[in-house]
Protein backbone atom coordinates (compact mmCIF):
# COMPACT_ATOMS: atom_id res chain seq x y z
CA UNK A 1 0.00 0.00 0.00
CA UNK A 2 2.62 2.49 1.06
CA UNK A 3 4.53 1.89 -2.15
CA UNK A 4 1.89 3.83 -4.07
CA UNK A 5 2.11 7.59 -3.56
CA UNK A 6 -0.95 9.18 -2.01
CA UNK A 7 -1.50 11.64 -4.88
CA UNK A 8 -1.93 8.72 -7.24
CA UNK A 9 -5.21 7.53 -5.82
CA UNK A 10 -7.92 8.52 -3.41
CA UNK A 11 -7.47 6.68 -0.09
CA UNK A 12 -9.80 3.72 0.33
CA UNK A 13 -10.53 1.48 3.29
CA UNK A 14 -10.44 -1.52 0.95
CA UNK A 15 -7.12 -3.35 0.82
CA UNK A 16 -5.95 -5.28 -2.22
CA UNK A 17 -5.25 -2.38 -4.57
CA UNK A 18 -1.58 -3.20 -5.16
CA UNK A 19 -2.24 -6.86 -5.93
CA UNK A 20 -5.16 -6.39 -8.31
CA UNK A 21 -3.72 -3.27 -9.92
CA UNK A 22 -0.46 -5.16 -10.42
CA UNK A 23 -2.19 -8.10 -12.09
CA UNK A 24 -4.32 -5.88 -14.34
CA UNK A 25 -1.41 -3.66 -15.37
CA UNK A 26 0.98 -6.55 -16.03
CA UNK A 27 -1.62 -8.25 -18.19
CA UNK A 28 -2.50 -5.09 -20.12
CA UNK A 29 1.14 -4.12 -20.59
CA UNK A 30 2.18 -7.49 -21.96
CA UNK A 31 -0.93 -8.13 -24.04
CA UNK A 32 -1.83 -4.65 -25.30
CA UNK A 33 0.71 -1.90 -24.65
CA UNK A 34 3.87 -3.79 -25.63
CA UNK A 35 2.39 -5.31 -28.84
CA UNK A 36 0.87 -1.97 -29.85
CA UNK A 37 4.18 -0.19 -29.38
CA UNK A 38 5.75 -2.82 -31.62
CA UNK A 39 3.07 -1.93 -34.17
CA UNK A 40 3.82 1.79 -33.94
CA UNK A 41 7.57 1.20 -34.15
CA UNK A 42 7.28 -1.04 -37.19
CA UNK A 43 4.93 1.40 -38.94
CA UNK A 44 7.25 4.36 -38.39
CA UNK A 45 10.38 2.32 -39.15
CA UNK A 46 10.84 3.86 -42.60
CA UNK A 47 9.71 7.33 -41.57
CA UNK A 48 7.10 9.49 -43.22
CA UNK A 49 8.42 8.50 -46.66
CA UNK A 50 7.66 4.86 -45.97
CA UNK A 51 4.14 5.66 -44.81
CA UNK A 52 3.46 7.83 -47.88
CA UNK A 53 4.90 5.20 -50.20
CA UNK A 54 2.60 2.52 -48.79
CA UNK A 55 -0.42 4.81 -48.91
CA UNK A 56 0.31 5.92 -52.48
CA UNK A 57 -0.21 2.35 -53.67
CA UNK A 58 -3.56 2.42 -55.53
CA UNK A 59 -4.36 -1.03 -54.15
CA UNK A 60 -4.00 0.21 -50.56
CA UNK A 61 -5.98 3.37 -51.23
CA UNK A 62 -8.78 1.43 -52.91
CA UNK A 63 -8.95 -1.05 -50.02
CA UNK A 64 -9.10 1.72 -47.39
CA UNK A 65 -11.77 3.59 -49.36
CA UNK A 66 -13.82 0.42 -49.77
CA UNK A 67 -13.50 -0.60 -46.11
CA UNK A 68 -14.34 2.78 -44.64
CA UNK A 69 -17.00 3.74 -47.19
CA UNK A 70 -18.89 0.48 -46.90
CA UNK A 71 -18.63 0.25 -43.11
CA UNK A 72 -20.03 3.76 -42.71
CA UNK A 73 -22.89 2.72 -44.96
CA UNK A 74 -23.37 -0.56 -43.09
CA UNK A 75 -23.36 1.28 -39.75
CA UNK A 76 -26.05 3.64 -41.04
CA UNK A 77 -28.21 0.74 -42.21
CA UNK A 78 -27.65 -1.09 -38.90
CA UNK A 79 -28.67 2.02 -36.98
CA UNK A 80 -32.03 2.09 -38.77
CA UNK A 81 -32.57 -1.67 -38.51
CA UNK A 82 -31.46 -1.46 -34.87
CA UNK A 83 -34.13 1.13 -34.06
CA UNK A 84 -36.75 -0.96 -35.88
CA UNK A 85 -35.85 -4.19 -34.06
CA UNK A 86 -35.42 -2.53 -30.67
CA UNK A 87 -38.81 -0.85 -31.05
CA UNK A 88 -40.51 -4.11 -32.06
CA UNK A 89 -38.87 -6.03 -29.19
CA UNK A 90 -39.72 -3.57 -26.42
CA UNK A 91 -43.08 -2.02 -27.32
CA UNK A 92 -45.09 -5.16 -28.03
CA UNK A 93 -45.68 -8.57 -26.56
CA UNK A 94 -46.02 -11.21 -29.25
CA UNK A 95 -45.60 -14.92 -29.69
CA UNK A 96 -41.92 -15.99 -29.97
CA UNK A 97 -40.74 -12.59 -28.79
CA UNK A 98 -38.18 -14.09 -26.31
CA UNK A 99 -36.83 -16.27 -29.14
CA UNK A 100 -36.53 -13.32 -31.50
CA UNK A 101 -34.87 -11.30 -28.76
CA UNK A 102 -32.26 -14.03 -28.19
CA UNK A 103 -31.69 -14.44 -31.94
CA UNK A 104 -30.63 -10.80 -32.28
CA UNK A 105 -27.29 -11.79 -30.74
CA UNK A 106 -26.71 -14.56 -33.27
CA UNK A 107 -24.19 -12.57 -35.37
CA UNK A 108 -22.21 -11.99 -32.18
CA UNK A 109 -22.25 -15.64 -31.11
CA UNK A 110 -21.79 -17.20 -34.55
CA UNK A 111 -18.10 -17.56 -35.45
CA UNK A 112 -17.32 -15.14 -38.27
CA UNK A 113 -15.98 -17.80 -40.64
CA UNK A 114 -19.21 -19.76 -40.22
CA UNK A 115 -21.27 -16.65 -40.92
CA UNK A 116 -19.04 -15.99 -43.93
CA UNK A 117 -19.55 -19.33 -45.64
CA UNK A 118 -23.28 -19.34 -44.78
CA UNK A 119 -23.86 -15.89 -46.29
CA UNK A 120 -21.79 -16.79 -49.35
CA UNK A 121 -23.77 -20.00 -49.82
CA UNK A 122 -27.08 -18.10 -49.53
CA UNK A 123 -26.23 -15.20 -51.81
CA UNK A 124 -24.05 -16.87 -54.44
CA UNK A 125 -25.84 -17.27 -57.81
CA UNK A 126 -26.91 -20.85 -56.98
CA UNK A 127 -28.06 -20.13 -53.42
CA UNK A 128 -31.61 -19.44 -52.19
CA UNK A 129 -31.30 -15.66 -51.97
CA UNK A 130 -28.87 -15.47 -54.88
CA UNK A 131 -31.39 -17.08 -57.25
CA UNK A 132 -34.18 -14.84 -56.00
CA UNK A 133 -32.18 -11.63 -56.31
CA UNK A 134 -30.51 -12.77 -59.52
CA UNK A 135 -33.92 -13.02 -61.15
CA UNK A 136 -34.37 -9.27 -60.69
CA UNK A 137 -30.81 -8.58 -61.77
CA UNK A 138 -29.14 -7.98 -58.40
CA UNK A 139 -25.79 -9.65 -57.78
CA UNK A 140 -24.72 -9.83 -54.14
CA UNK A 141 -21.95 -12.38 -53.70
CA UNK A 142 -18.49 -11.32 -54.93
CA UNK A 143 -19.57 -7.66 -55.27
CA UNK A 144 -19.33 -4.69 -52.86
CA UNK A 145 -23.00 -5.34 -52.04
CA UNK A 146 -21.99 -8.70 -50.53
CA UNK A 147 -19.36 -6.97 -48.37
CA UNK A 148 -21.99 -4.48 -47.21
CA UNK A 149 -24.34 -7.31 -46.32
CA UNK A 150 -21.71 -9.15 -44.25
CA UNK A 151 -20.77 -5.89 -42.48
CA UNK A 152 -24.43 -5.23 -41.66
CA UNK A 153 -24.79 -8.78 -40.36
CA UNK A 154 -21.94 -8.56 -37.85
CA UNK A 155 -22.85 -5.06 -36.63
CA UNK A 156 -26.59 -5.56 -36.11
CA UNK A 157 -26.59 -6.91 -32.50
CA UNK A 158 -24.54 -3.95 -31.29
CA UNK A 159 -27.00 -1.51 -32.87
CA UNK A 160 -30.10 -3.20 -31.42
CA UNK A 161 -28.61 -3.54 -27.94
CA UNK A 162 -27.65 0.12 -27.69
CA UNK A 163 -31.12 1.40 -28.62
CA UNK A 164 -33.18 -1.20 -26.72
CA UNK A 165 -32.57 -0.01 -23.12
CA UNK A 166 -33.52 3.58 -24.04
CA UNK A 167 -36.93 2.55 -25.40
CA UNK A 168 -37.36 0.24 -22.40
CA UNK A 169 -36.81 3.10 -19.94
CA UNK A 170 -39.23 5.31 -21.86
CA UNK A 171 -41.26 7.71 -19.77
CA UNK A 172 -44.78 6.56 -20.56
CA UNK A 173 -46.37 9.71 -19.11
CA UNK A 174 -44.69 12.03 -21.60
CA UNK A 175 -46.00 9.87 -24.37
CA UNK A 176 -49.54 9.80 -23.00
CA UNK A 177 -49.70 13.51 -22.29
CA UNK A 178 -48.33 14.39 -25.72
CA UNK A 179 -50.86 12.18 -27.43
CA UNK A 180 -53.87 13.09 -25.28
CA UNK A 181 -53.09 16.75 -25.87
CA UNK A 182 -53.77 16.16 -29.50
CA UNK A 183 -50.43 15.59 -31.15
CA UNK A 184 -50.86 13.12 -33.98
CA UNK A 185 -48.88 9.90 -34.01
CA UNK A 186 -46.68 11.01 -36.89
CA UNK A 187 -45.83 14.32 -35.24
CA UNK A 188 -45.16 12.56 -31.95
CA UNK A 189 -42.71 10.17 -33.61
CA UNK A 190 -40.94 12.94 -35.47
CA UNK A 191 -40.77 15.60 -32.76
CA UNK A 192 -40.41 13.60 -29.56
CA UNK A 193 -39.35 10.03 -30.26
CA UNK A 194 -36.60 10.67 -32.80
CA UNK A 195 -34.75 13.34 -30.78
CA UNK A 196 -34.92 11.20 -27.63
CA UNK A 197 -33.48 8.24 -29.49
CA UNK A 198 -30.73 10.27 -31.18
CA UNK A 199 -27.90 9.71 -28.66
CA UNK A 200 -28.51 5.95 -28.49
CA UNK A 201 -28.83 5.77 -32.27
CA UNK A 202 -25.48 7.53 -32.62
CA UNK A 203 -23.90 5.06 -30.20
CA UNK A 204 -25.44 2.27 -32.27
CA UNK A 205 -23.85 3.76 -35.38
CA UNK A 206 -20.43 3.96 -33.72
CA UNK A 207 -20.45 0.40 -32.41
CA UNK A 208 -21.71 -1.05 -35.69
CA UNK A 209 -19.08 0.94 -37.59
CA UNK A 210 -16.23 -0.23 -35.33
CA UNK A 211 -17.29 -3.82 -35.77
CA UNK A 212 -17.79 -3.55 -39.53
CA UNK A 213 -14.57 -1.76 -40.45
CA UNK A 214 -12.32 -4.36 -38.84
CA UNK A 215 -14.37 -7.41 -39.80
CA UNK A 216 -12.49 -10.09 -41.67
CA UNK A 217 -13.88 -13.61 -41.33
CA UNK A 218 -17.42 -13.10 -42.53
CA UNK A 219 -16.36 -10.83 -45.40
CA UNK A 220 -13.51 -12.60 -47.17
CA UNK A 221 -15.70 -15.46 -48.41
CA UNK A 222 -18.45 -13.30 -49.89
CA UNK A 223 -16.19 -10.50 -51.13
CA UNK A 224 -14.46 -12.17 -54.05
CA UNK A 225 -11.29 -10.31 -53.01
CA UNK A 226 -10.41 -8.74 -56.35
CA UNK A 227 -7.66 -6.11 -55.89
CA UNK A 228 -8.92 -2.53 -56.45
CA UNK A 229 -12.54 -3.77 -56.55
CA UNK A 230 -13.61 -5.98 -53.66
CA UNK A 231 -10.49 -6.19 -51.49
CA UNK A 232 -10.97 -4.91 -47.91
CA UNK A 233 -8.17 -3.34 -45.87
CA UNK A 234 -7.85 -6.14 -43.26
CA UNK A 235 -7.32 -8.62 -46.10
CA UNK A 236 -4.56 -6.41 -47.48
CA UNK A 237 -2.83 -6.56 -44.08
CA UNK A 238 -2.90 -10.34 -44.30
CA UNK A 239 -1.59 -10.21 -47.89
CA UNK A 240 1.31 -7.94 -46.85
CA UNK A 241 2.16 -10.29 -43.98
CA UNK A 242 2.21 -13.27 -46.33
CA UNK A 243 4.85 -11.42 -48.39
CA UNK A 244 6.75 -10.75 -45.11
CA UNK A 245 6.23 -7.01 -45.66
CA UNK A 246 5.90 -6.31 -41.92
CA UNK A 247 6.30 -2.55 -42.34
CA UNK A 248 3.58 -2.35 -44.98
CA UNK A 249 1.21 -4.42 -42.86
CA UNK A 250 1.93 -2.29 -39.78
CA UNK A 251 1.39 0.96 -41.71
CA UNK A 252 -2.02 -0.12 -43.05
CA UNK A 253 -2.97 -1.32 -39.55
CA UNK A 254 -1.96 2.00 -37.98
CA UNK A 255 -3.77 4.05 -40.61
CA UNK A 256 -6.89 1.96 -40.07
CA UNK A 257 -6.71 2.41 -36.30
CA UNK A 258 -6.12 6.17 -36.50
CA UNK A 259 -8.98 6.63 -38.98
CA UNK A 260 -11.43 4.52 -36.98
CA UNK A 261 -10.51 6.21 -33.70
CA UNK A 262 -11.03 9.60 -35.40
CA UNK A 263 -14.46 8.55 -36.66
CA UNK A 264 -15.37 7.11 -33.25
CA UNK A 265 -14.20 10.41 -31.71
CA UNK A 266 -16.59 12.35 -33.95
CA UNK A 267 -19.36 9.88 -33.05
CA UNK A 268 -18.60 10.50 -29.36
CA UNK A 269 -18.78 14.28 -29.84
CA UNK A 270 -22.09 14.01 -31.71
CA UNK A 271 -23.44 11.81 -28.95
CA UNK A 272 -22.47 14.39 -26.32
CA UNK A 273 -23.94 17.21 -28.37
CA UNK A 274 -27.28 15.46 -28.74
CA UNK A 275 -27.41 14.40 -25.09
CA UNK A 276 -26.82 17.98 -23.95
CA UNK A 277 -29.11 19.53 -26.56
CA UNK A 278 -31.96 17.42 -25.25
CA UNK A 279 -31.61 18.54 -21.64
Amino acid at each position, binding site marked *: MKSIPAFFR*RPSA*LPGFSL*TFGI*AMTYLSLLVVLPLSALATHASGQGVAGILKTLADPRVLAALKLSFGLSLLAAYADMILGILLAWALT*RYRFWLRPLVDALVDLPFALPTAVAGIALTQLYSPGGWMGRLLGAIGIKVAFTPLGILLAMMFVGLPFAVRSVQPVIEDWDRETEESALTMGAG*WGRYLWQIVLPTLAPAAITAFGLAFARAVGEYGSII*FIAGNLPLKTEIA*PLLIVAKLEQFDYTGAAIIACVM*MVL*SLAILGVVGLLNRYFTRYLR
Partner: protein
Amino acid sequence: MTRISSFEPLWFARLVVGAALAVIAVFLMLPLVAIFEQAFVLGWRAYAHAFSEPDARASILLTLAVALCTVPLNVLFGLAAAWVIARYDFRGKSLLTAILDLPLSMSPVIGGLIFVLLFGANGWFAPLLALLGIKVIFAFPGLVLATMFVTMPYVARSLIPLMQEQGSDEELAALGLGASLGYVWRKITLPNVRWGLLYGIILTNARAMGEFGAVSVVSGLIRGKTMTMPLYIEALYNDFDFTGAFALASLLAMLALVTLVAKALVGLQVERVRG
Protein backbone atom coordinates in the same frame (compact mmCIF):
# COMPACT_ATOMS: atom_id res chain seq x y z
CA MET B 1 -49.64 -9.27 -30.49
CA THR B 2 -50.42 -6.71 -27.79
CA ARG B 3 -49.20 -3.16 -27.61
CA ILE B 4 -47.69 -1.78 -24.42
CA SER B 5 -49.01 1.67 -25.27
CA SER B 6 -52.64 1.81 -26.34
CA PHE B 7 -51.99 5.21 -27.91
CA GLU B 8 -49.97 3.62 -30.65
CA PRO B 9 -52.04 3.09 -33.83
CA LEU B 10 -52.60 -0.56 -34.59
CA TRP B 11 -51.54 -0.25 -38.22
CA PHE B 12 -48.18 1.17 -37.08
CA ALA B 13 -47.63 -1.64 -34.60
CA ARG B 14 -48.44 -4.27 -37.22
CA LEU B 15 -46.10 -2.64 -39.72
CA VAL B 16 -43.20 -2.50 -37.25
CA VAL B 17 -43.60 -6.07 -35.99
CA GLY B 18 -44.02 -7.38 -39.51
CA ALA B 19 -40.92 -5.61 -40.76
CA ALA B 20 -38.89 -6.71 -37.72
CA LEU B 21 -39.91 -10.35 -38.11
CA ALA B 22 -39.05 -10.21 -41.82
CA VAL B 23 -35.59 -8.82 -41.05
CA ILE B 24 -34.98 -11.49 -38.41
CA ALA B 25 -36.18 -14.29 -40.68
CA VAL B 26 -34.27 -13.33 -43.82
CA PHE B 27 -31.22 -11.73 -42.28
CA LEU B 28 -30.59 -13.93 -39.23
CA MET B 29 -32.57 -17.19 -39.51
CA LEU B 30 -31.88 -18.00 -43.14
CA PRO B 31 -28.05 -18.18 -42.82
CA LEU B 32 -28.50 -20.47 -39.81
CA VAL B 33 -30.84 -22.76 -41.76
CA ALA B 34 -28.45 -22.73 -44.73
CA ILE B 35 -25.60 -24.05 -42.54
CA PHE B 36 -27.55 -27.14 -41.46
CA GLU B 37 -29.06 -27.67 -44.90
CA GLN B 38 -25.63 -27.68 -46.51
CA ALA B 39 -24.17 -29.90 -43.78
CA PHE B 40 -26.81 -32.60 -44.34
CA VAL B 41 -27.30 -32.16 -48.09
CA LEU B 42 -25.41 -35.43 -48.80
CA GLY B 43 -27.02 -37.29 -45.90
CA TRP B 44 -26.05 -38.39 -42.42
CA ARG B 45 -23.22 -40.62 -43.52
CA ALA B 46 -21.35 -37.82 -45.29
CA TYR B 47 -21.99 -35.61 -42.26
CA ALA B 48 -20.56 -38.18 -39.85
CA HIS B 49 -17.67 -38.89 -42.19
CA ALA B 50 -16.56 -35.25 -41.97
CA PHE B 51 -15.84 -35.76 -38.27
CA SER B 52 -13.88 -38.98 -38.74
CA GLU B 53 -11.05 -37.16 -40.55
CA PRO B 54 -7.98 -36.96 -38.27
CA ASP B 55 -7.36 -33.32 -39.28
CA ALA B 56 -10.94 -32.41 -38.35
CA ARG B 57 -10.55 -34.07 -34.95
CA ALA B 58 -7.22 -32.33 -34.42
CA SER B 59 -8.84 -28.97 -35.19
CA ILE B 60 -11.63 -29.62 -32.67
CA LEU B 61 -9.13 -30.59 -29.96
CA LEU B 62 -6.94 -27.58 -30.74
CA THR B 63 -9.94 -25.23 -30.50
CA LEU B 64 -10.86 -26.69 -27.11
CA ALA B 65 -7.25 -26.42 -25.92
CA VAL B 66 -6.98 -22.77 -26.97
CA ALA B 67 -10.25 -21.91 -25.20
CA LEU B 68 -9.14 -23.85 -22.12
CA CYS B 69 -5.96 -21.75 -21.87
CA THR B 70 -7.60 -18.45 -22.76
CA VAL B 71 -10.68 -18.43 -20.54
CA PRO B 72 -9.03 -18.96 -17.10
CA LEU B 73 -6.37 -16.32 -17.77
CA ASN B 74 -8.96 -13.80 -18.91
CA VAL B 75 -11.12 -14.60 -15.88
CA LEU B 76 -8.19 -13.87 -13.56
CA PHE B 77 -7.43 -10.62 -15.39
CA GLY B 78 -11.11 -9.66 -15.63
CA LEU B 79 -11.65 -10.11 -11.88
CA ALA B 80 -8.55 -8.08 -11.03
CA ALA B 81 -9.34 -5.31 -13.53
CA ALA B 82 -13.00 -5.10 -12.47
CA TRP B 83 -12.01 -4.89 -8.78
CA VAL B 84 -9.52 -2.10 -9.50
CA ILE B 85 -11.90 -0.11 -11.71
CA ALA B 86 -15.08 -0.62 -9.67
CA ARG B 87 -13.57 -0.19 -6.20
CA TYR B 88 -10.95 2.57 -6.38
CA ASP B 89 -10.48 6.08 -7.70
CA PHE B 90 -7.05 6.72 -9.11
CA ARG B 91 -5.28 8.76 -11.73
CA GLY B 92 -5.39 7.28 -15.20
CA LYS B 93 -8.47 5.19 -14.50
CA SER B 94 -10.18 6.39 -17.67
CA LEU B 95 -7.02 5.58 -19.65
CA LEU B 96 -7.04 2.08 -18.16
CA THR B 97 -10.70 1.66 -19.18
CA ALA B 98 -9.92 2.91 -22.69
CA ILE B 99 -7.06 0.41 -23.09
CA LEU B 100 -9.35 -2.31 -21.78
CA ASP B 101 -11.90 -1.53 -24.52
CA LEU B 102 -9.34 -1.23 -27.31
CA PRO B 103 -9.62 -4.81 -28.62
CA LEU B 104 -13.36 -4.22 -29.20
CA SER B 105 -12.73 -1.45 -31.72
CA MET B 106 -9.75 -3.01 -33.47
CA SER B 107 -9.71 -5.37 -36.41
CA PRO B 108 -9.00 -8.92 -35.20
CA VAL B 109 -6.44 -9.11 -38.00
CA ILE B 110 -4.48 -6.34 -36.26
CA GLY B 111 -4.85 -8.34 -33.04
CA GLY B 112 -2.91 -11.13 -34.74
CA LEU B 113 -0.49 -8.84 -36.54
CA ILE B 114 0.84 -7.24 -33.36
CA PHE B 115 2.00 -10.62 -32.05
CA VAL B 116 3.68 -11.43 -35.36
CA LEU B 117 5.56 -8.13 -35.02
CA LEU B 118 6.71 -9.15 -31.52
CA PHE B 119 7.42 -12.85 -31.97
CA GLY B 120 7.58 -13.42 -35.75
CA ALA B 121 10.66 -14.00 -37.89
CA ASN B 122 11.69 -10.30 -37.89
CA GLY B 123 9.98 -9.51 -34.60
CA TRP B 124 11.39 -7.82 -31.50
CA PHE B 125 11.79 -11.06 -29.56
CA ALA B 126 12.88 -13.24 -32.50
CA PRO B 127 16.53 -13.54 -31.32
CA LEU B 128 15.49 -14.37 -27.76
CA LEU B 129 13.00 -17.01 -28.90
CA ALA B 130 15.60 -18.56 -31.24
CA LEU B 131 18.04 -18.71 -28.34
CA LEU B 132 15.51 -20.45 -26.11
CA GLY B 133 14.23 -22.65 -28.93
CA ILE B 134 10.60 -21.61 -28.41
CA LYS B 135 8.18 -21.11 -31.27
CA VAL B 136 5.33 -18.67 -30.68
CA ILE B 137 4.13 -17.67 -34.13
CA PHE B 138 2.84 -20.53 -36.30
CA ALA B 139 2.48 -22.50 -33.07
CA PHE B 140 0.14 -23.01 -30.11
CA PRO B 141 1.34 -20.09 -27.93
CA GLY B 142 0.65 -17.63 -30.75
CA LEU B 143 -2.90 -18.92 -31.12
CA VAL B 144 -3.49 -18.48 -27.39
CA LEU B 145 -1.96 -14.98 -27.29
CA ALA B 146 -4.04 -13.74 -30.23
CA THR B 147 -7.21 -15.25 -28.76
CA MET B 148 -6.45 -13.78 -25.32
CA PHE B 149 -6.08 -10.34 -26.88
CA VAL B 150 -9.33 -10.47 -28.83
CA THR B 151 -11.38 -11.80 -25.88
CA MET B 152 -9.69 -9.72 -23.17
CA PRO B 153 -12.45 -7.16 -22.41
CA TYR B 154 -15.47 -9.46 -21.99
CA VAL B 155 -15.13 -10.72 -18.39
CA ALA B 156 -14.09 -7.31 -17.03
CA ARG B 157 -16.85 -5.56 -19.01
CA SER B 158 -19.51 -7.92 -17.61
CA LEU B 159 -18.29 -7.46 -14.02
CA ILE B 160 -17.64 -3.72 -13.77
CA PRO B 161 -21.25 -2.37 -13.87
CA LEU B 162 -22.39 -5.11 -11.48
CA MET B 163 -19.61 -4.44 -8.96
CA GLN B 164 -20.14 -0.68 -9.19
CA GLU B 165 -23.86 -1.01 -8.45
CA GLN B 166 -23.39 -3.35 -5.53
CA GLY B 167 -20.86 -1.08 -3.82
CA SER B 168 -18.41 -2.15 -1.15
CA ASP B 169 -20.51 -1.88 2.04
CA GLU B 170 -20.69 -5.63 2.64
CA GLU B 171 -16.99 -6.07 1.98
CA LEU B 172 -16.04 -3.20 4.31
CA ALA B 173 -18.29 -4.54 7.06
CA ALA B 174 -16.70 -7.99 6.86
CA LEU B 175 -13.20 -6.49 6.86
CA GLY B 176 -14.14 -4.36 9.87
CA LEU B 177 -15.19 -7.51 11.71
CA GLY B 178 -11.73 -8.91 11.09
CA ALA B 179 -12.17 -11.05 8.00
CA SER B 180 -9.16 -11.41 5.73
CA LEU B 181 -9.25 -10.03 2.19
CA GLY B 182 -9.07 -13.51 0.69
CA TYR B 183 -12.04 -14.57 2.80
CA VAL B 184 -14.02 -11.48 1.73
CA TRP B 185 -13.29 -12.16 -1.94
CA ARG B 186 -14.31 -15.83 -1.64
CA LYS B 187 -17.39 -15.33 0.52
CA ILE B 188 -18.76 -11.92 -0.55
CA THR B 189 -17.33 -10.50 -3.77
CA LEU B 190 -17.39 -13.65 -5.90
CA PRO B 191 -20.86 -14.88 -4.84
CA ASN B 192 -22.29 -11.41 -5.45
CA VAL B 193 -21.01 -11.21 -9.01
CA ARG B 194 -21.29 -14.90 -9.91
CA TRP B 195 -23.92 -14.42 -12.63
CA GLY B 196 -22.01 -11.54 -14.19
CA LEU B 197 -18.86 -13.65 -14.12
CA LEU B 198 -20.66 -16.54 -15.79
CA TYR B 199 -22.00 -14.14 -18.41
CA GLY B 200 -18.49 -12.92 -19.14
CA ILE B 201 -17.17 -16.49 -19.33
CA ILE B 202 -19.90 -17.45 -21.83
CA LEU B 203 -19.02 -14.48 -24.08
CA THR B 204 -15.27 -15.12 -23.77
CA ASN B 205 -15.63 -18.80 -24.57
CA ALA B 206 -17.86 -18.19 -27.60
CA ARG B 207 -15.44 -15.62 -28.98
CA ALA B 208 -12.40 -17.78 -28.20
CA MET B 209 -13.73 -20.89 -29.95
CA GLY B 210 -14.94 -18.95 -32.98
CA GLU B 211 -12.07 -16.50 -33.45
CA PHE B 212 -10.86 -16.36 -37.04
CA GLY B 213 -9.08 -13.17 -38.11
CA ALA B 214 -6.56 -12.95 -35.29
CA VAL B 215 -5.65 -16.63 -35.26
CA SER B 216 -5.46 -16.90 -39.04
CA VAL B 217 -2.59 -14.39 -38.99
CA VAL B 218 -0.54 -16.24 -36.34
CA SER B 219 -1.46 -19.81 -37.24
CA GLY B 220 0.66 -20.57 -40.29
CA LEU B 221 -2.19 -22.90 -41.31
CA ILE B 222 -0.51 -26.27 -40.80
CA ARG B 223 -3.20 -28.96 -41.15
CA GLY B 224 -3.58 -31.18 -38.12
CA LYS B 225 -1.19 -28.94 -36.15
CA THR B 226 -2.12 -25.24 -35.99
CA MET B 227 -5.56 -25.13 -37.59
CA THR B 228 -8.38 -24.36 -35.20
CA MET B 229 -11.91 -25.26 -36.27
CA PRO B 230 -12.73 -21.95 -38.00
CA LEU B 231 -9.41 -22.09 -39.90
CA TYR B 232 -10.00 -25.70 -40.91
CA ILE B 233 -13.48 -24.75 -42.12
CA GLU B 234 -11.89 -22.13 -44.37
CA ALA B 235 -9.41 -24.68 -45.72
CA LEU B 236 -12.16 -27.21 -46.47
CA TYR B 237 -14.30 -24.54 -48.10
CA ASN B 238 -11.44 -23.39 -50.32
CA ASP B 239 -10.87 -27.04 -51.31
CA PHE B 240 -14.55 -27.20 -52.39
CA ASP B 241 -15.28 -29.78 -49.65
CA PHE B 242 -18.52 -27.98 -48.82
CA THR B 243 -20.07 -30.85 -46.86
CA GLY B 244 -16.98 -31.07 -44.66
CA ALA B 245 -16.87 -27.31 -44.17
CA PHE B 246 -20.55 -27.00 -43.31
CA ALA B 247 -20.49 -30.11 -41.10
CA LEU B 248 -17.81 -28.53 -38.91
CA ALA B 249 -19.58 -25.20 -39.21
CA SER B 250 -22.80 -26.80 -37.94
CA LEU B 251 -20.93 -27.82 -34.77
CA LEU B 252 -19.87 -24.20 -34.20
CA ALA B 253 -23.40 -23.04 -35.06
CA MET B 254 -24.75 -25.33 -32.33
CA LEU B 255 -22.21 -23.84 -29.95
CA ALA B 256 -23.52 -20.42 -30.93
CA LEU B 257 -27.12 -21.48 -30.24
CA VAL B 258 -26.15 -22.90 -26.84
CA THR B 259 -24.32 -19.63 -26.18
CA LEU B 260 -27.45 -17.62 -27.07
CA VAL B 261 -29.67 -19.65 -24.73
CA ALA B 262 -27.12 -19.53 -21.89
CA LYS B 263 -26.59 -15.81 -22.48
CA ALA B 264 -30.34 -15.11 -22.34
CA LEU B 265 -30.85 -17.18 -19.16
CA VAL B 266 -27.80 -15.81 -17.35
CA GLY B 267 -28.67 -12.31 -18.55
CA LEU B 268 -32.03 -12.61 -16.79
CA GLN B 269 -30.25 -13.60 -13.56
CA VAL B 270 -27.89 -10.62 -13.87
CA GLU B 271 -30.90 -8.30 -14.32
CA ARG B 272 -32.51 -9.85 -11.23
CA VAL B 273 -29.37 -9.26 -9.14
CA ARG B 274 -29.18 -5.66 -10.36
CA GLY B 275 -32.86 -5.20 -9.56
